[in-house]
């Protein structure tokens, strides 16, 4: 390794960079832009649902909004944010100078903006953008799809390629670049959860690529994978999609487990309870995620034996997840806890993610699911695991590591304001959805029966509170980057890990000589 040098100047720094910190920052900014875009789509949905009847948008556009909201949030906001955190943190946490494959790292980021530009551009094309829901079930996405579906398919291919390259890079880094003495069972949990997540990505992103390729062939090349007229079967689509889709939901939550497992011990001032059980629980969840996919499709007509198998297998996931929740609680038990912003987000994560997990258990009960299927109860469930789950963990991570990244402490008053606005906003938005869902309000419909009006108005008000508090978050982050109290190297009193041994802000190159562990 040659002499140390700083980043290049100007735009080429970002275009040509192979530095894991630069690429991590770009991933995070990209993800935040997508988060705001997906949020605007959500606000269109909520504004339309403020009153029964059709007010603001026509139903076709409403369908495009629900679809694009899901796609942008899942593939544009949550996944790139975790990859960004992985880029910033994994090399510093394992004592490596950079990612194992820095040039591929650059490429896997820079194809993403093109993928999303293409996907969002479909909204302006003839016939509109994707309107078949983020799960793009055939034949809605094949026989009945708008012509722009081909651009959607290629966008999915590109973002899949990006994720696969990111995952390969992360595995190669973790398995080959650890500092001497950093054994696997000494790795921080964030590294562990990302290692397992990366394997999930490698296993299922090709399946997603496969299923969209089959769509492409059905639409343009005369095959009939999903078309009964040619001997195919639309239910096959659902099986393949959810074989990807269920591991995908763990891809969006396992790194979150790693983040709160780093933050809670710091602010409880106790080591994490049950480190090894956390590792095994994460691995168990990942393995189980491959045998539960059909719980998304209990109502398609599965034999009773199948319903029972998928029901019990799904409930089994509550066991390792429960291990994790109890470990976090036990870590906090009798700790001397302080409630800085990252800790607030982490505690909210534990509580609200558990609520989301419990509604998941309700949905896992196959006979009951016939009532809940495709209602707002499902919407409430997955927003409770994704918003205070994935998104809150990302907020927590930003507040926790931002002083390390930019060298300034976050103004706690501002951070806490953001937390409380988000916390209150999200509960007002999503909690009433449980009620309208149980009462039978179907999802993805722009109009609804009169009796759901009150709860929907409450949800919409909450959504606007939550949405605008994210603009406030942008302000907090920009303000912190520009100025603020100078952060120490250690940042937090009882933070553990190699990333706290380097200066704040972290130098452009860290661990060019491996640290001693």
């Amino acid at each position, binding site marked *: 390794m040659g002499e140390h040098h700083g980043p290049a100047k100007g735009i080429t720094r970002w275009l040509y960079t192979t530095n894991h910190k630069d690429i991590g920052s770009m991933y995070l900014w990209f993800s935040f832009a997508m988060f705001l875009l997906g949020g605007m789509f959500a606000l269109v949905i909520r504004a339309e649902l403020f009153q029964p009847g059709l007010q603001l948008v026509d139903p076709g556009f409403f369908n495009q909004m629900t679809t694009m909201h899901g796609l942008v949030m899942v593939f544009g906001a949550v996944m790139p944010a975790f990859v960004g955190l992985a880029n910033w943190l994994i090399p510093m946490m394992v004592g490596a*100078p950079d990612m*194992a*494959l820095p040039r591929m790292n650059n490429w896997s980021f820079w194809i993403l903006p093109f993928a999303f530009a293409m996907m969002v551009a479909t909204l302006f094309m003839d016939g509109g953008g994707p309107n078949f829901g983020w799960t793009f079930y055939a034949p809605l996405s094949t*026989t009945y799809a708008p012509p722009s579906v081909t651009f959607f398919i290629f966008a999915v291919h590109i973002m899949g390629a990006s994720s*696969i390259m990111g*995952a*390969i890079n992360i*595995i*190669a880094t973790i*398995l*080959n*670049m650890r500092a001497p003495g950093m054994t696997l069972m000494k790795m921080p949990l964030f590294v562990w959860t990302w290692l397992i997540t990366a394997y999930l990505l*490698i*296993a*299922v*992103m*090709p*399946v997603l*690529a*496969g*299923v969209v390729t*089959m769509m492409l062939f*059905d*639409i*343009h090349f*005369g*095959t*009939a*994978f999903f*078309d*009964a*007229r*040619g*001997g*195919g*079967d639309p*239910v*096959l689509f659902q*099986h*393949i999609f959810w*074989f990807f889709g269920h591991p995908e939901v763990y891809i969006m939550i396992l790194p979150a487990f790693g983040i709160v497992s780093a933050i809670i011990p710091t602010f409880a001032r106790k080591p994490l309870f049950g480190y090894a059980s956390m590792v095994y629980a994460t691995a168990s969840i990942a393995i189980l995620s491959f045998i539960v996919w059909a719980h998304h499709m209990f109502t398609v*007509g*599965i*034999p009773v034996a199948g319903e029972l198998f998928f029901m019990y297998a799904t409930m089994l996931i509550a066991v390792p997840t429960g291990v994790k929740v109890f470990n976090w609680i036990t870590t906090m038990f009798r700790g001397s806890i302080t409630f800085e912003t990252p800790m607030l987000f982490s505690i909210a994560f534990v509580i609200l993610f558990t609520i989301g997990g419990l509604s998941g258990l309700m949905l896992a009960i196959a006979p009951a699911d016939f009532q809940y299927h495709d209602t707002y109860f499902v919407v409430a469930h997955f927003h409770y695991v994704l918003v205070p789950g994935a998104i809150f963990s990302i907020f927590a991570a930003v507040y926790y590591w931002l002083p390390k990244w930019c060298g300034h402490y976050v103004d706690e008053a501002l951070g806490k304001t953001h937390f409380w606005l988000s916390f209150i906003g999200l509960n007002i938005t999503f909690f009433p959805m449980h009620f309208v869902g149980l009462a039978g309000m179907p999802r993805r419909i722009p109009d609804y029966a009169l009796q759901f009006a009150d709860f929907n108005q409450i949800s919409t008000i909450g959504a606007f509170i939550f949405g605008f508090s994210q603009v406030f978050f942008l302000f907090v982050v920009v303000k912190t980057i520009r100025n603020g109290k100078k952060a120490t190297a250690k940042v937090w009193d009882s933070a553990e890990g190699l990333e706290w041994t380097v200066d704040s802000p972290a130098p452009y190159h860290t661990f060019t000589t491996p640290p001693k562990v």
Partner: protein
Amino acid sequence: MSDKQNKQIQRQVAKLSIVVVAMFAFVFVVMVPLYNLFCEVTGLNGKTGGPYQAEQVVVDESRTIRVQMISMNNEEMPWQFGPEVTEVFVHPGEQVQVNYLATNPTGKEMVAQAVPSVLPFRASSYFHKTECFCFNQQTLAAGESIEMPLVFIVDPEVPDNVSTITLSYTIFDVSPARASVGAK
């Protein structure tokens, strides 16, 4: 980075890339055939098998099974299509012929494909067709009508708790002008 470490990383990337390619292929060469096999074995979605070679079996006179025949037109398929009779009573093992009628009322030649489905699912692997119009596409000229035979046998092994079998045909328009979607 040492050469040794570089080698290790290269080997790792090669291995992972193989997994990626294998998982992509898995969708086409494993998941699709496996799903079709699974449906055939379990009768899931009421899929029935291809042409059946009739064997000499004893007709089980002690049981009578009601076979109902229904038909559906997919989307805007304009043909008049339906069974001659809506139900027949058969003994397991007995070979029975029924007819479906189709008329093309439009002014142009059209091609159709009928796709069968059997309820209850647990009966579908016991419902054998020795001759069926669904094995081929049907072409009708403008205004033409056709009588399409179906010969079937209900297997004597059919579970005791099956007393009614419903056979449903959906007819799809597969005229070359209309669809880019071909037939199997």
